[in-house]
């Protein structure tokens, strides 16, 4: 999937992946896509809740080799 910005949130646990994603999205424009890589299993629910709350669209969630990858589209 194409993305405009990449955020490495590996090794971080809550609340930092969300805080950093929030900051990254603030520097982007409508329609742009942010990719986030994280390792905390708790981040799966966190990003789902974050997307729902902020109105940014969570395009996909995948897990590969203990790394979670999220694509979020700026609203």
């Amino acid at each position: 999937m194409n993305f405009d910005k990449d955020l490495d949130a590996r090794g971080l646990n809550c609340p930092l992946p969300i805080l950093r994603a929030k900051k990254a999205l603030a520097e982007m424009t409508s329609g742009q896509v942010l990719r986030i890589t994280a390792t905390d299993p708790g981040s799966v629910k966190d990003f789902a809740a974050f997307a729902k709350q902020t109105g940014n669209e969570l395009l996909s969630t995948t897990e590969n080799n203990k790394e979670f990858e999220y694509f979020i589209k700026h609203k």
Partner: protein
Amino acid sequence: MSADGGVCWLDGLKKDYHEIFVEEWSPYLGAVLMILIILGLMVSGMFWGIYGGLKLWGDYINNMIGIGPLLGTPQQLETLLMHRMSLMNMTLVLGAFCAALLSRQFLISRPPKLEYVWATLGGCLMGLGATMAGGCTSGAFFTPVLHSSPNGWVMCIGLMAGAVIGLKALLWTLENVEWGMRAPPTLNVSPSLLSAYPWLGLGVIIAVLYWATDWYTSDNERHAARGVVVLAGFAMGFIMHRSRLCFARAFREPFMTAEGHMTKAIILGLAIGVPIASLLIERKLIDAYLGIPPTFWVGSLLGGLIFGVGMIFAGGCASGSLWRMGEGHIKLWVAAFFFAVSASVSNALLKKAGLFVSEIMIDETVSTKLGIQAYYPVMMGNWGWALLAGGASLLIWYILVSYNECTEKFTVL
């Protein structure tokens, strides 16, 4: 049985395994199970706390590095396995480790360098805060609320304020600090090891069951009394990992994303627990004052505030740090280490400052410079008002969290 029947049975087993041991549990389920364990402890005359165990670990560390005598730490300490809270903390980590193996989520996770600074700071603040409040979120918030004491509610206010300050500080550094943000590569787990995780988890369960039974049936009285603690701690860690139960989250999330799931789970747990706990106390199965520290209100409020900031920095309170240690997060190992050292040092310093000088009051409760052992049934004269006060506090908390979920009025992001 036909071959198809066999396959179907195996598929069913796999599906059930996935649902129970891999899929995340609802925090509501986690909170209800947690309260059952705590009530079980209360029936045995015990209460749930973590701080005392961590402080003992800190005493050991301080004696080992030689500052123990300076602080006046006793040189003869209870052994790590015989101290009830220390034992329960250790089995809690083990329970979470086992759950992480069964779900194949165990991973030795190395954070970026800056996180070690947060872990150190957070651990130190939590150690100090817990010393002042007479315990962590388990021992000085959750347990006192269950024991119908306003101490827990005062700490709750401190924790909320601390969570806001902690979040603000984290946000500020995100804008202004560049150092140490780069993550080291994720450690590779070989597929064969990963597929062995559930079997290792099963091994841990069998070993712990053997341990608990061996102690429970032992002729040694001290061992026999601690068999239950081994199981309770293990189950607590298992449940907390499966439902990702987290007090830090319950206090932080309403101010962050306004999502109130975890907070409401804690409220539900208390709503079920308070009436039953009151009954156990009234029937004299446990002495209510055992779980109420002499910290109302100065110690509870200030301690809660400091602890609240610390748990945001560390990414977990005491129990939250312990179960994440079991899942393999190095950051939380560091946080717990500094929590322990700071708890031991803070305890010694506050003692030297005379803050812990205790007085026995007329009603035989204890009072210190940090406060008293406040207990609703005595303050209000009867159980009816006491339960009403506890229930009203829970209801107000619930309404605020729900209101915030719709309006996001309290978020600071």
